[in-house]
Structure formats: structure tokens, C-alpha cells
């Protein structure tokens, strides 16, 4: 077993462990931008520990679906982390599932979250679930189009191959990828309940989407849900890095030196991406829920435009 494949095996567990750190870093950056001191980058871990030590309270009318759903969500996100190349293309499931399957894995987690929110029968859960499905229904085609643009350039839908091809073409400017990148950032913001669409830190009834769905959860279930949403953000950031700035990612033919360098480079890129996300969130105001379709339609159209520009200019 070569060093490369060993590193590939630790990649997914490492992503699962480090995902809350990214959320902590983003929150810390937002706090700095708002002239606050912030709770430190380790705060998500403290929250998770606190929640894991508490007892889980479950509503009377809850079926087993409500109980199982957090585990399914966490499992789906962990599997997605195993598909996405974070710092080396030898992600354990990288060749087993392509980008389209990846979108399916994200959809699985979303459907179970919405079903669990409706399971209790409270008004808020249903409201949140409906809104989440609206956002998901609009952002999924945009995400697929972004992936298809990258796939057309690299002639493959497998993420490791895409990263290998894009990483090897040095200094080629792809206008289509620029369009796709903008669309991807918009999808990332919408899918992860970040500010223009949803506010991750609010409990104001009329505006919340994600928080409305998890109101009934407590204890270890809530911890798993928080962790899986941190992991979802981490996964999206890793996809963005892999598609649009793949330089420094350890390729298939990478030697030990490149593998050793790949980890700090990936950490630096994710840190920069997190800081940029914090800036975007600080600069923009939350949209009304009825503006969300417009926002996501723009993302979809930009992705389609990327596809068209690729067909026109880059063949």
C-alpha cells in the first residue's frame, strides 16, 4: 500500500473532524468584521460537546423517522466527504461516485431532514421544510450545471479526473469556469443557509429556514445535525476549491513531497475561502424569501451561460 492511498484513507475522517473548525473560523471572521471579539474558532466543538452530554428529548408524536434522520444526514455528509478530493485526489470513494451521484447524496440528506421536520407536525417544522425544499429544488439544477461545465472541459464526471485535468492545464483562462464559479458561490450560500437566503444565527420565526426545521431536536440528535451542516459547508467549500483553484492538490502521480505540501496548501485555501465567505455575508443583506427564486434563477442562468460560453469559445 503506497503512501498516497494511506493518505487517501485518512482524508475523509480528517474532513469530518475538521469541518466544525471551518464554521468556527467563518464565525470568528464575521465577528472581527463586525467589531466583536468573537467566541474563538473552537466554539463549534464546545457546542458539540455540550450537546453530546445532554439528554435527547423527543416529542410524543415522533415516529422512528425523526430518530433516524440525524444519523442518515450525518452519514450522507460523511460519504460526500469521502467522495470529494480535499487535499489529494485519492479520496476513498472518489472513483466510486461521480458528481451527479454526489448531488444525489446531498439531496438524500435534504429529503430526510425535511421529512423529519414534518414528522412532528408542528407548524414551524412544516414551514421550514417547505422552504428548504423550495431552495433545494432551485439550487440543485444550478449545481448540476456547474458540474457539467467542469465535466465538459475535462471530459469526465469523476471529481478526481476533473481535478487532475484542471490542475494540469497551467495558466489557461476559462471564462466558462468564471461563470460557473459565480453560480457555485450563489448555490453554496443558498444551500448552506448562509446570509442572502437564510441567517444561520437567527431564531426569528418569519425568516428562518434551516433553524425552523431543527427546532424540535435536542441533545445528541441536534449535535449530529449541527455537525452534518458544518460538514456540508466544508464539503461545498472543498468542491469549490477542487473545481476552481485546484493547484497544489496532490494529483494521482504525486510524490511524498507534494503529498506533504498538499495538506497545508488545502488548509490555507479553505481558510481564505472561509474569510471570503465571511466578507460576502457581512456585505450582503438577507433577501426576502420571495426573492430567493430570483437569486437562484440567476445562479442557474449563470451556470447555463458558462456552459454556452464553453461551447462557443473554448472548443
Amino acid at each position: 500500500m503506497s503512501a498516497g492511498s494511506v493518505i487517501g484513507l485518512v482524508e475523509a475522517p480528517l474532513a469530518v473532524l475538521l469541518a466544525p473548525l471551518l464554521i468556527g473560523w467563518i464565525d470568528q471572521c464575521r465577528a472581527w468584521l463586525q467589531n466583536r471579539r468573537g467566541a474563538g474558532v473552537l466554539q463549534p466543538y464546545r457546542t458539540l460537546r455540550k450537546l453530546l452530554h445532554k439528554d435527547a428529548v423527543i416529542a410524543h408524536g415522533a415516529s422512528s423517522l425523526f430518530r433516524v434522520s440525524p444519523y442518515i444526514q450525518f452519514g450522507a455528509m460523511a460519504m460526500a466527504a469521502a467522495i470529494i478530493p480535499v487535499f489529494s485526489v485519492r479520496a476513498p470513494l472518489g472513483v466510486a461516485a461521480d458528481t451527479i451521484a454526489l448531488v444525489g447524496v446531498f439531496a438524500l440528506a435534504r429529503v430526510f431532514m425535511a421529512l423529519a421536520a414534518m414528522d412532528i407536525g408542528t407548524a414551524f417544522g412544516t414551514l421550514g421544510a417547505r422552504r428548504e425544499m423550495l431552495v433545494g429544488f432551485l439550487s440543485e439544477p444550478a449545481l448540476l450545471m456547474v458540474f457539467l461545465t467542469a465535466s465538459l472541459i475535462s471530459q469526465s464526471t469523476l471529481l478526481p479526473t476533473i481535478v487532475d485535468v484542471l490542475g494540469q492545464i497551467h495558466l489557461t483562462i476559462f471564462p466558462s469556469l468564471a461563470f460557473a464559479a459565480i453560480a457555485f458561490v450563489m448555490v453554496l450560500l443558498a444551500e448552506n443557509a448562509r446570509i442572502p437566503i437564510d441567517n444561520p444565527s437567527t431564531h426569528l420565526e418569519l425568516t428562518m429556514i434551516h433553524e425552523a426545521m431543527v427546532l424540535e431536536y435536542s441533545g445528541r440528535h441536534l449535535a449530529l445535525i449541527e455537525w452534518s451542516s458544518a460538514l456540508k459547508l466544508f464539503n461545498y467549500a472543498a468542491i469549490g476549491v477542487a473545481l476552481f483553484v485546484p493547484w497544489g492538490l496532490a494529483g494521482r502521480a504525486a510524490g511524498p513531497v507534494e503529498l506533504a505540501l498538499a495538506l497545508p496548501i488545502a488548509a490555507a485555501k479553505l481558510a481564505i475561502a472561509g474569510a471570503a465567505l465571511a466578507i460576502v455575508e457581512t456585505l450582503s443583506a438577507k433577501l426576502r424569501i420571495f426573492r430567493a427564486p430570483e437569486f437562484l434563477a440567476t445562479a442557474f442562468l449563470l451556470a447555463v451561460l458558462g456552459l454556452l460560453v464553453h461551447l462557443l469559445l473554448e472548443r
Partner: protein
Amino acid sequence: MTTLPLSSQLINLGAAVLLLTSFAMLSQRRIVSLVNLFAIQGAALSASTAIVAYTSGQHHLYYSAALSVALKMLLLPWILHRLIRRLNVRWDTEPLINIPTTMLVGIVLVVFAFGLAQPISQMSTTIARSTLGIALAVVMLSFLMMITRRKAISQIVGFLAMENGLFFAATSATYGMPMVVELGVALDVLIGMVILGVFFFQIREQFDSLDLQHLEQLRED
């Protein structure tokens, strides 16, 4: 896939920025941001014209690049900003059809323009021939913007953006029009802008609004 030379990559990038700003204008509700986007479009236009001039050795294109910096990036946005301040029309524009529908129509137009330009650009021999489709798309998107907007100022911005598209089409298909024509067009646009500025004041004085729908109800008393 063959890799293109750096210069044509940069020209393609400029063309993509042009298309992107056209779409941004189509989706923009605020007049002030509309004018800023127009200035960005002018900058992209002049940059790609300068790159075409450098690679093809056509020196007169440097003049037209400089002309579009002076006119489309600086002077016209300045005039528009001044008009907006003096007319006090900073509020949102009201599109006739809602914005997602407009964008969908826009995508259809882009597909149409790309298809239309394909055979034409195969006959051309210039370095930027593949961007002809984008130039046509910009022209059509600006048309669409003029059709779907109610307020006079956003229609004017659409008109000016259409001129940008035509300019870019000329550059990409035949290395630009003769200098005399370019100067003439630039002067026309400038004069048109001044006259329309006067018109804006007249329209507002008559109707207390820049909404051009009022013009359809004119009656002789």
C-alpha cells in the same frame, strides 16, 4: 482540446465579462448600479479592444480603445450619474415582466445569437472571430432591456449598452470600423445623450415621472 494563445484567452475573458455585465444589467433593479455596470462594461470593452489592437497590430484600434475609455467608462457614466442626481430618480426601476422570466428570455436570445454567429464567424479571419456570437448576444440583451424597462433612464442605458455590443461586434468581425465612422458614432452617442438629458427634464415636467407609459396616453386637448 487545443490550448489557445494567451491573447485570445484574454479577449475571450473580456467578451465573457461583457456578456456577464449585460446579464447583470438585465437583472439589476437599481438605476445607480445600472450605470455602474455600464461603466464596467465600457472598461471591459476598451480592455479587449486594446488587446485585439496589440495582437493584430492594428494601430487605429488603440484610438478606439482610448475613445471608449474616455467616453463609455468615464464621460457617459458621469453624465448619467449627474442626471440621476438632478432628476432625483434613485429609486428602483419597475420592469414590465418579472426578472426571472426576463433572464430566461435572455438565455434563449443568447442561444439564438450564438447559433446565428457560428457560420458568420467561420468566414471571418480575425483573431477575435469566436467572440462575434457574444457581441450579437450583447446587442440582443440590450434590446431586451430597452423593451422590458419602463423608466426612460434605464432605456437609455440599454441603448448605450447596445452601442457597446455593436462596437465589439465590429472589432471582432473586421477589426473595427473606419476611424471616421467610429468618431461619428461616438459623437452621435454623446450628442444623443445630451439631447435625451434635456428630454428627461421635459418628460418629468409634463408627467411628474420618467415612466414612459405616460407617453402612450397623450391626447390632443
